[in-house]
């Protein structure tokens, strides 16, 4: 029973704050609504026994990505002018975009509901996943792990080079 309450709480939080983030006219409101979406997704991860992913979500998404997005808003909008408003396309295009998004949601949900997923309901072990993740990162996924570190280095250098004032 407790699992149901927690799941529905986080699900409603995620959907409502994502709606605000998508539909709000003010960019600042969108970014701060995204904060609640990320927190809700982290709660869903905890509910799914993914403790390390939840911590990573909070550290990187909220501590890193959200701060970068707020920097992006602050550096590219004139607070004093109306430029902070997000530009939006016409009503006609918005209607068709909403229709397409609803169709995509309905299609994916239909697939998810009608497929007979091969679930194994015996999830008895509830131990922490950090040790297992660390072991497999340094054994099975070593190449991906090391190349991702190289990719991070390249991205840092590239971003610094692009954003540098001439």
């Amino acid at each position, binding site marked *: 029973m407790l699992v149901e309450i927690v799941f529905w709480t986080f699900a409603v939080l995620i959907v409502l704050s994502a709606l605000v983030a998508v539909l709000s006219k003010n960019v600042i409101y969108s970014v701060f609504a995204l904060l609640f979406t990320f927190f809700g997704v982290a709660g869903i991860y905890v509910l*799914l026994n*993914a403790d390390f992913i939840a911590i990573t979500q909070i550290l990187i998404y909220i501590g890193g990505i959200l701060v970068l997005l707020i920097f992006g808003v602050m550096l590219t909008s004139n607070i004093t002018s109306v430029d902070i408003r997000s530009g939006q396309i016409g009503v006609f295009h918005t209607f068709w975009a909403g229709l397409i998004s609803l169709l995509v949601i309905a299609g994916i949900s239909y697939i998810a509901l009608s497929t007979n997923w091969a679930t194994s309901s015996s999830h008895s072990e509830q131990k922490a996943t950090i040790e*297992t993740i660390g072991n497999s990162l340094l054994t099975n996924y070593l190449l991906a792990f090391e190349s991702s570190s190289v*990719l991070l280095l390249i991205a840092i250098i590239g971003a610094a080079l692009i954003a540098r004032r001439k």
Partner: protein
Amino acid sequence: MGIGLTHYLVLSAILFGLGLFAIITRKNAVLVLIGVELVLNSANINFVAFSKFNKLNIDGHIAALFVIMLAAIEVAVALAIVLNIYQNYKHINVDEVDTLKE
């Protein structure tokens, strides 16, 4: 009624649709990035949900970790590009940016 795999899949489908809507309708580059983040989060929910309910053990968690890392890289590089666009155009409307260099 227990919370099963399909609950998580439908939740991530809704999140995906909202992110898609933001990507389609928004002109502001930062809001397009927000839509991309929502889509990546919905994919991550799917990875972790399948990892729990289908005995994928830890592989789904690893995939979710790499997706989070790639999202961080993507936002850093995209923000650098957005700042450059702002220096050249004084706005960041993605539909009006149509030249690579002044």
